[in-house]
């Protein structure tokens, strides 16, 4: 993997720089962890007590004892999974169609989809909000999932991937009497497994972390996703149970993301880089 500077070992200056950087990167995370392990009462007096014992798991217990946080977690899971499955289905079908099938206006339609890549969230979010209000879709799972399905990146990604599969396979399938759908379902789709993983993880993360849309669409506390719920906790923290509990929520919210990150690190990096380069 290494090119270029790999042959020269790192200078001490570089080591120091990276070390400081790593410290700066990790310190906030550690601080948050420490705070979450302290009793709220102690922290109210002086948050410096986070540096010393005693530590407690009381805040986490409090979360686990049943709490809005669980409801938020569930919502996030449903919305993110739903969005991911929806995106994979729609974009795989469309990717196959654009990459392999001939139909009138194919090129025009593809350019039509590509242009969507330039549209920033801001240009559509407000009208979308009104549209969903008219359709009565706010504070619902479909309302949270549907906007996530409209993004063109997935189609672009899957189309590129399908294009890279040798056409001979399609031709062999044609000679084997396979219909278009059979060719898609039994021959080509299984070969896109890596792309499915990459796009799936990327979509899942993006959906999980999205803030703007769930913020304005889910206004009832029980429909908050974890991301939005945390924001509301943050804004209300003075009135709620305190700093330790708040930080425990942050750690708790990070756990699913870190699990996904550790499991799918490669896919995530590949997808984000791919999304960037388009």
């Amino acid at each position, binding site marked *: 993997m290494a090119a270029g500077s790999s042959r020269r070992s790192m200078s001490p200056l570089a080591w120091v720089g990276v070390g400081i950087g790593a410290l700066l990167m990790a310190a906030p995370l550690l601080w948050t962890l420490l705070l979450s392990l302290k009793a709220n009462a102690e922290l109210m007096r002086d948050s410096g007590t986070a540096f010393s014992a005693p530590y407690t798991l009381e805040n986490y217990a409090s979360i686990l004892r049943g709490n809005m946080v669980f409801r938020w977690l569930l919502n996030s899971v449903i919305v993110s999974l739903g969005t991911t499955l929806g995106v994979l289905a729609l974009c795989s079908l469309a990717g196959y169609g654009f990459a392999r099938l001939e139909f*009138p206006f194919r090129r025009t339609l593809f350019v039509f989809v590509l242009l969507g890549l330039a549209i*920033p969230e801001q240009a559509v979010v407000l009208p979308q909000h009104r549209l969903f209000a008219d359709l009565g879709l706010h504070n619902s799972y479909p309302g949270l999932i549907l906007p996530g399905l*409209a993004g063109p990146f997935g189609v672009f990604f899957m189309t590129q991937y399908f294009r890279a599969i040798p056409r001979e396979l399609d031709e062999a399938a044609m000679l084997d009497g396979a219909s278009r759908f059979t060719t898609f379902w039994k021959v080509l789709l299984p070969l896109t497994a890596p792309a499915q993983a990459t796009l799936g993880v990327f979509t899942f993360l993006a959906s999980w972390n999205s803030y703007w849309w769930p913020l304005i669409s889910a206004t009832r506390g029980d429909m908050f996703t974890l991301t939005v719920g945390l924001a509301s906790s943050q804004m209300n923290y003075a009135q709620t149970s305190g700093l330790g509990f708040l930080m425990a929520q942050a750690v708790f919210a990070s756990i699913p993301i870190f699990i996904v990150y550790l499991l799918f690190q490669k896919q995530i990096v590949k997808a984000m880089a791919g999304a960037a380069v388009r």
Partner: protein
Amino acid sequence: MTGAGMRNRWGGIAFVAPFLLVYSFLLIYPLFNGILLSFHNADLFGGERWIGLANYSRLLQDPTFHQSLLNTFKLALLIVPTLTAISLALALALNKPGRTPAIFRGLFFSSSVLSVTIVTLIWRFILTPDAGLMAEVAEALGQEPIPWLSHPDLTIPALAITTIWWSVGLPMMLFLAGLQQIPEDMYEAAALDRAGRWTTFRRITLPSLKRTTILVVMLQTAAQLQIFGQAQLLTAGGPSGASRPVVLYIYEASFGRWELGYATALAEVLFMLIIAVTLVQYWAGTRVKDA
């Protein structure tokens, strides 16, 4: 690929239709609807009046909007160069095989997978003078804690620091990918020519990274022009709008004051701005000389 006797030419549309329907209805239609809305006096729940360009002339004279524009530019100017430099430095330092560099790379990327609400939660309690980490460190050193989140001159830098911590991972990965595409031969030739470390960097590495650098700058600028969550949650755009970026202003206009028409006009202006800046950067990038 056509085959003889494919039953009908339109059959392929069935595959792209589901996505196209969602896309047209939920993205394209709102896009045009938004443009239309910006010419109306509308609120979020129906009821609108055509007012032509009134929203646009209003925003041209709106001092709060101007302030938010300025803030947004300040933020972008603080964040993008620093972020680019830091991520490049990290990529250079960590472009090595082995487990230790891999662990470090993973660490630096990990903040990017967190949501904005987690990040602001974390950083609130770093920066806040009552209970924050920085406050603790300041006390330990016998200093006064710095009012990052309340002093008008400090809120923008505070947001910048938070955002840089959050965003360093992706540009670093892009630079790493760019570095790996530089052929080993170029470095060997430079070594044979007795080029020192700095010269090699300046003459070989940097020029080869031109495309990646332009990409990073373009992406980050577009992203930071749309900065929102950190401003809303950490500083609420304050004090008195000192750290309110454009998107926060749009949010307040639409969900605070129900001025949907005006907010959409603001959003369209932002949209145009992003496109303009991106194009200028792209054009400028093609003018910079290659290696």
